[in-house]
């Protein structure tokens, strides 16, 4: 078990002929991901890393069972690509694209809800069910099977922490990139719920950051609904208010979204909060 994707997941790559799309198709294949087709309008008949390319998701879905799709399309076309996948009936849509307009994101989320599909991102590194399937852009080497689920707002910081865990001998079930924007297709609460229901996941690492109230709301959720232990790390302790720290969502506005507020809420919900990324493995060892 794992969440969202596993060794049987058949994956479509939208924007497969682009620089990012083709490079990561190779990386995903190397990880063992079952990529069945790619889409790039006007490129029907080509292949990328041996994967056949179609003009439309509809055609690809008429030829293969597609369980998940990953989107490597520039921001202006990302909404279109997500809706195309959703309307074609794809159940898990991973939108790697960054700089997607906020209103497009609201529409994507509404559409995913309407279709009962799982939308991951946008501005996500993707999702990895360790040893089974990688969808997105993270480096292959750190994702080794184990008992910990990880959900995070940021990429490299997750790899850092997952590598720290691995160095301590702890592997992962599924690592989910929630995405660094103000709104996320699947947010902390939803992913935590999914980990709660996954028998293989014994504990969860939650990697948050300043801005918004997603962590505070997750804390409230954890307090009432989660039986599994959660360890958190929150980035941005030193960030000044009013400044956007790289991620669209990482900004302290109108007194909301502070580091202190998040840590307090999480601790009140019984979550161990690591002071440094390095401390995460120790805290995990205490709870599993």
């Amino acid at each position, binding site marked *: 078990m794992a969440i969202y994707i596993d060794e049987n997941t058949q994956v479509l790559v939208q924007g497969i002929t682009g620089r990012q799309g083709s490079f990561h198709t190779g990386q995903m294949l190397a990880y063992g991901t079952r990529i069945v087709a790619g889409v790039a309008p006007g490129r029907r008949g080509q292949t990328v890393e041996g994967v056949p390319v179609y003009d439309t998701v509809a055609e690809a879905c008429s030829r293969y069972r597609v369980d998940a799709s990953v989107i490597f399309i520039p921001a202006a076309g990302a909404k279109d690509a997500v809706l195309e996948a959703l309307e074609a009936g794809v159940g898990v849509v991973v939108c790697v694209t960054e*700089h997607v307009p906020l209103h497009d994101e609201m529409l994507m989320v509404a559409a995913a809800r309407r279709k009962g599909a799982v939308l991951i991102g946008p501005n996500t590194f993707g999702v990895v069910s360790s040893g089974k399937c990688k969808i997105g852009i993270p480096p292959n080497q750190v994702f080794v099977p184990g008992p910990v689920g990880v959900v995070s707002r940021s990429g490299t910081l*997750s*790899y850092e922490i997952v590598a720290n865990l691995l160095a301590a001998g702890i592997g992962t079930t599924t690592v989910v990139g929630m995405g660094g924007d103000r709104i996320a297709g699947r947010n902390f609460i939803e992913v935590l719920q999914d980990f709660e229901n996954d028998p293989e996941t014994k504990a969860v690492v939650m990697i948050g950051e300043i801005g918004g109230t997603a962590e505070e709301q997750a804390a409230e959720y954890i307090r009432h609904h989660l039986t599994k232990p959660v360890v958190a790390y929150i980035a941005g302790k030193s960030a000044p208010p009013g400044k956007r720290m790289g991620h669209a969502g*990482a900004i302290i506005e109108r007194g909301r979204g502070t580091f202190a507020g998040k840590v307090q809420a999480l601790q009140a919900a019984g979550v161990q909060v690591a002071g440094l990324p390095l401390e995460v493995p120790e805290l995990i060892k205490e709870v599993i």
Partner: protein
Amino acid sequence: MKLFECMGKDLFRSQGIPVPDGEVITQAAQAAGVLERIPAAVLKSQVLSGKRGKAGGIKFPRDAAEAVAQAGELLGQELQGYQVEKILVEEKLTIQHEYYLAITVENSMRCPLILASAAGGMDIEEVPEEMIVRRPVDPVLGVSEYVGREIAWRMGLSGEPSKQFAALLPGLYRLFMELDAELVEINPLVWTGEKLVAADAKVTVDDEALYRHPDLPRVEEKTALEQKAQAIGLSFVELDGDIAIMANGAGITMATLDIIQHYGGRPANFLDAGGGANVEQTAQALELLLATNPRVIFINIFGGITRCDDVATAFSQVKKTRGIPVPVVIRLVGTNEARGVEILRETGIEAYRSMSEAAAKAVELAQKA
């Protein structure tokens, strides 16, 4: 991107939302002409700060002569870090009551959210929670007049104010949607006894959607260095410390700042070089770091897509071509790590594997410098 009040009011007007009669001036003498038409006027400095009233950016002249004098004082003055270049001279409203009205995006529900309160005129954070009406918007249903009537009822309005509130809300929502706004705010929304009028206008447009709004005038809030970083596609924020920082990824860059602070250091900046930066981009990023005149440079690379050898090569190039006059601490792990470490060694730098040790070293060097 935040818009100036006068721009927001123009947009309000285009949606039929009542705003005070007024004109924008850029020279003090122009105030006299406006006062002739609008004898009871107020001068409002057009800056992006939210607290310009308390900072003296708003004036109430008794006559045209005083208006010209006050405009002269305001123009060119610095107000909470912003230079006053324009003044909105507008009709002074009779205030019977001040309301609050805004539309924003609710991050967890992931839909537009209308915020309203009968306690307007102050910052919404200072309004007690029970005085705030929160109304999420279903994107299928949108906002038509009944939504305004419902909110007005929950705010305790009735009669004419309720009717006018219901009439203006759909226009504000339309503006929010058409403009790709993150926030549209009217505070205060003034009841004059006869009319509801938007006495202020705060509009923030989503930066990521600006390309869809080529006609919207651009308002720049970034420093010169931040603008330069933006032009080369890097995410950069200037801070007031002395340790220049670069990492690859927004989260890990924040964590790098935190760890520097944890060991007692002060970051000079936030610089996310992104995942997968190549040699040239990394070199440009280094130039930015040097432009902050730091005491120490700290580079923290966890190589995934980013290749350690690319980062090392860029560093070596910059060092050779323009020189790096301050100590540098580099943490380097991941893709092509061995090759990267080797290249750095050739430039005389020993890379760290541990983020914590490297950060501690950087702080130590900065304190010594």
